[in-house]
């Protein structure tokens, strides 16, 4: 990796951010999606136990992430892709997407946590574990959804493909996240927390490795 590669990655991240800020409807629609979903949940379930809180949190997280990530590659028009293809390498593109999607999912996760705390209740006992869970969740889901989004966008019929492909793949990551945030919510004992975190990191590592290998192949189409 040369200095130029880092400059390219930084440039791509800036470009994504610029597009995001220019097309404000995506940001506002996700904001509205999160707030209204949480509001509806709080109205339907008057009292929410920590266990249910944990489960609903991750369900809303996945579905918001699906709709937020869907545009990750579909927004790239084909002629623009061709242009990038000549300018920067595929590894730089996928790394930029990972970083950008990680931060946007992180922002989404924080927004979701805050709205859960405001509208529902606050069962969080250990904030460090909770935000560690959200961060690792954003990382894992970001990696999987980025690759699946690139697969789905080259497949055309992307909205249905995306949810069919992404949700089974994301389950192992979610199962670990449920345990990590479950520990933070005092549902589970923290005996296995180090094990869970290191395994989740290992899975994410494998996923990133496989993505770096696969993306150049997909990108060529």
């Amino acid at each position, binding site marked *: 990796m040369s200095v130029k590669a880092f400059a390219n990655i930084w440039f791509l991240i800036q470009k994504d951010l610029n597009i995001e800020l220019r097309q404000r409807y995506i940001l506002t629609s996700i904001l509205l999606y999160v707030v209204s979903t949480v509001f509806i949940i709080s109205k339907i379930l008057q009292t929410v136990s920590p266990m249910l809180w944990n489960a609903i949190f991750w369900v809303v997280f996945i579905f918001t992430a699906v709709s937020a990530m869907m545009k990750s590659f579909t927004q790239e028009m084909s002629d623009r892709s061709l242009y990038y293809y000549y300018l920067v390498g595929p590894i730089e593109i996928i790394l930029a997407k990972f970083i950008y999607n990680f931060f946007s999912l992180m922002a989404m996760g924080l927004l979701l946590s805050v709205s859960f705390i405001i509208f529902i209740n606050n069962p969080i006992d250990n904030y460090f574990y909770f935000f560690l869970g959200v961060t690792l969740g954003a990382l894992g889901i970001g990696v999987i959804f980025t690759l699946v989004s690139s697969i789905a966008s080259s497949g055309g019929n992307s909205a249905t493909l995306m949810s069919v492909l992404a949700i089974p*793949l994301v389950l192992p990551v979610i199962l670990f996240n449920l345990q990590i945030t479950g520990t933070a919510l005092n549902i589970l004992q923290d005996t296995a927390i180090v094990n869970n975190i290191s395994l989740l990191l290992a899975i994410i590592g494998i996923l990133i490795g496989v993505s770096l290998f696969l993306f150049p*192949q997909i990108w060529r189409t």
Partner: protein
Amino acid sequence: MKGSWWKILSVVLMLYVIVVGFLMPLKPGIVNVTPQNLNSGEEVTLEVELYNADITEQNKSQIRAWLIRDTTYILQSQRVNVVNDQLLEIDFNLPEHLPTDEEVMAFTLVVDAPDMGSSVLPSGIFVGQSGGNQSLGAEAWSRGGLVNLSVYKGFGIPYRNLLAETLRNTYFHVSLWFAMFILYFVSVIYSIRYLRKREVYFDQVGSSLVEVGTLFGILGLITGAIWAKNTWGTYWTADVKLNMAAISMMIYAAYLVLRISLADADKRAIISSSYNIFAFFIIIPLIFVIPRLTDSLHPGNGGNPGFGGEDMDNTMRMVFYPAILAFTLLGLWMANLMMRYKRIRNKLDEI
């Protein structure tokens, strides 16, 4: 016929597995004992129900029985009375004290007869006491010894309580999952080769292997469900290993949906190949890592021992290893047929 020796081998092995797997008898075992709860100091008669016991006129008088604990505390029976060839009445003269301070101690019942081998009921007899004396108990329980245990004559697979005859499912359930993994692994190799070389042939082979592998996985789930019904009492339970297996099948079901939903052949090949590689690396932690870390009913996970050691003896291995090979070869043959079908259909589409 020249290149198809492995197809013939798969059929021969499959027949061998079915015939030998189902016909090989179980070794004798203890099904049930009444009463199971005894008190120290009493003279009791245990009614012991045997399975597959081979009690003849010759060995009838030489049946012996013991209550043992860790082979250090051993008590031999007073008398063994043969009611019929599946039912024994065994008299024990229990000592006044147990070799422990606790109120209840679990013992293992061992029944031995010449040519029949020894049958074991692990920790199935509970002896209670009130106000015991450990040293007196240890002395009283140390008089006997397990000597001259006989060896089972002939071929037989071990009798395990709860499992009993369902132990034969090892040849099918476990082998199907092994074969599934081998097929998926080979398909990943072909997917990688497709992405490198971009030849339709590799995609046809890879996708056929995934389809057959998924069929094997579903059969593995079904055989596992039948096994669970007979040993755990339910077809499906929220166990971590079962959930992970179901998720893996969902991931591959998504693969099949993906292939149907893409009309363009090149696109379908590239996308499904890359998805296949991704999916394989996700199911490795799902099936092999996560279930080992949490509590699970499934053998080989969460502290449960796998089917090694006493459960899987050499007679079982004689069928189990050929079964894996038979299912793998059969799967490769099925994938081969699928691949040829796809090739013909491709050609027809071109016309």
